[in-house]
């Protein structure tokens, strides 16, 4: 029989609460994007739910949340966002791991997590951008950087990388800081609800 991994971040056993967390997280992503649109913020704010789920239930649930999130976007808003399911899954894994190793309790750790999550998203999205869009992201500021870099005779991959960094990194840092605030302020009973693979010790 396979040895059971207690408290491993990679466990594939979820309790029902962790499973139900996924639709809620996708809903939170959706609302974050909606609020950012209503308030005309210059950021996307569309991964708050993914990051929160990753903090609460670990990297695997975070990755599933991210992937499902973009599939649902694809089915309801813009079909092309389905391909970015991979970058959202990457964000979920990074944030989940950082939270598992206790980095999401201080502001410094949160900023580091945001940078790492942003870099994960950048490194997965850039090849997709080049394959589908020839390197642009569709964001005004990012594409201005892209055009500027091409005009300076930089190679396409570098221009596209810069484009994506300008767009993704600030967004992810702000998102993770907001998530840290919510995560720390959450009651303990809610935090422990989604941990499904803890070892049960008996007292006698």
């Amino acid at each position: 029989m396979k040895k059971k991994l207690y408290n491993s971040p990679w466990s594939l056993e979820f309790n029902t609460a962790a499973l139900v967390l996924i639709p809620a997280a996708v809903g939170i992503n959706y609302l974050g994007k909606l609020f950012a649109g209503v308030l005309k913020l210059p950021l996307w704010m569309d991964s708050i739910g993914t990051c929160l789920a990753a903090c609460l239930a670990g990297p695997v649930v975070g990755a599933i949340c991210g992937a499902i999130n973009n599939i649902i976007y694809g089915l309801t808003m813009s079909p092309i966002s389905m391909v970015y399911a991979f970058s959202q899954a990457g964000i979920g894994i990074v944030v989940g791991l950082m939270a598992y190793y206790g980095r999401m309790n201080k502001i410094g750790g949160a900023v580091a997590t945001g940078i790492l999550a942003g870099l994960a998203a950048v490194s997965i999205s850039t090849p997709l951008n080049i394959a589908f869009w020839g390197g642009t992201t569709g964001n005004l500021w990012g594409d201005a950087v892209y055009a500027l870099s091409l005009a300076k005779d930089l190679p396409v991959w570098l221009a596209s990388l810069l484009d994506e960094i300008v767009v993704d990194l600030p967004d992810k840092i702000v998102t993770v800081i907001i998530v840290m605030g919510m995560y720390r302020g959450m009651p303990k009973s809610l935090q422990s609800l989604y941990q499904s693979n803890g070892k049960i010790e008996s007292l006698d």
Partner: protein
Amino acid sequence: MKSISLYEEKNSTLNHLDSGCKMLYMVAAILVPALIGNKWANVAVIILSVFLLAISKVLRKTVPVLSVSGIVILTIVIIQGMFRAGNTTVVLQLGPAAFYKEGLLYSLGIALNVFNILLAICVLIFTTKPSDMVENFIEKGFSPRLGYVFISIFQIIPQMMETMNTITDAQRSRGMETEGSLLVRIKAFLPLISPVVMSSLVDTKERAIALEVRGFNAKTKKTFLNERKVTTTDKIINLLLIAAVLASVAWRVKLWLG
């Protein structure tokens, strides 16, 4: 409650077609032009998809979906037309801005590819109920637990949007400003989003209990409420689509060898 799904019941031919058929069409419509690698193949499939959307009476609904990507395509045409490496032949001179043939052709290729993928997906999602697709996957061995997750999203998001309206009204009545300078708008973000987050997390606890009480984790084989009917027409269309994909794979192999 407003549904977030783009599906609409129009009682059309495609509505009655099995969901597996339409999923296969989407895959084939994306794969075949990619394998053949010719712009005209893209154009042909785009015309086919537009025809299918038209007979399903949902052609008008594709306009907002296409216009979202249309703006991105427009920036691509401008940027690639002006700055792409290898641009040599000027075709259009607008004041200081020069558009080059190579860049414009390259961006035309991207535009055709993107519109083809978009229309193929539109054929599927405008004519198929999301729950039908998920049920189809579950029948083929997809985990029913994850299937529940997918279906429930379509119910949870409209609910959460209603909560969001309530909270926006409540916070406004307490004097929160949602318009003004960037700083004011940033400050408004947290008081709006955090109550929804907390209430939806508390809801998950109750939903988990409700599901477990109803045997959500039972290991027995699940049965279906709606029985799927696969007609002979569905089977023929499936065979034709698979044949088209195989033929284009053969074409590709022949190109490599020859």
